[in-house]
């Protein structure tokens, strides 16, 4: 298995771990019933913002650890640049990821049309972000294994 394939797998696993652990951390902090709307919006706003920051930092740390482990186990250096194949695969991954997120965004807006509670909209939106991240990594893995 090549560096890029391993990296895609690690990316999928780390995305799942980061999202699940963050959700488990934030779930008990959800403001209960009877609180002002501004409190609920504050919760969801901070949920999204801190999730973004947390996942960026966690991805960087996991990426560094992965590179160290890769060098130690294979005695091979990781590629330092992206060539035309990498760029093409990245474009396809971004396209799929973007498509999934836009679909989720539309569903989230649709939930508001059907008078669903506010938390349903945010949950769909956040889930769409998570699934789009996974879709991007899975697309990369697929194209690195099966070709373009």
């Amino acid at each position: 298995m090549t560096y890029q394939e391993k990296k895609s797998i690690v990316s999928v696993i780390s995305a799942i771990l980061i999202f699940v652990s963050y959700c488990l951390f934030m779930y008990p902090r959800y403001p209960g019933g009877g609180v002002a709307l501004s409190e609920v919006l504050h919760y969801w706003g901070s949920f999204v913002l801190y999730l973004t920051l947390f996942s960026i930092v966690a991805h960087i740390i996991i990426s560094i650890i992965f590179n160290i482990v890769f060098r130690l186990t294979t005695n091979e250096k990781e590629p330092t640049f992206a060539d035309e194949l990498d760029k093409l695969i990245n474009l396809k991954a971004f396209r799929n990821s973007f498509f999934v997120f836009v679909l989720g965004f539309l569903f989230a807006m649709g939930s508001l049309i059907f008078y669903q509670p506010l938390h349903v909209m945010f949950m769909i939106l956040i889930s769409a972000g998570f699934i789009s991240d996974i879709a991007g990594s899975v697309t990369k893995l697929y194209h690195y294994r099966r070709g373009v």
Partner: protein
Amino acid sequence: MGKNLVGNHIRKLRFNHDEMTQQQLADKVGVTRQTIVALEKGNYSPSLELAFRIALAFNLPLEEVFFYGDQTKQ
């Protein structure tokens, strides 16, 4: 995926050039080893520029390295 009509003789040519490694060829033409692996497996059709660079690395004309169609063996 993987049904590329552009084939190549890169593996054979590497062998004939003092058993050049995939990494050596990758360094010569400015791509990663993964791209050479994908080319040899027939999983990727290179850009025209990369095809020319590979042909130049072997000092051969383009048509002796790459072919179009079902010519899997020469």
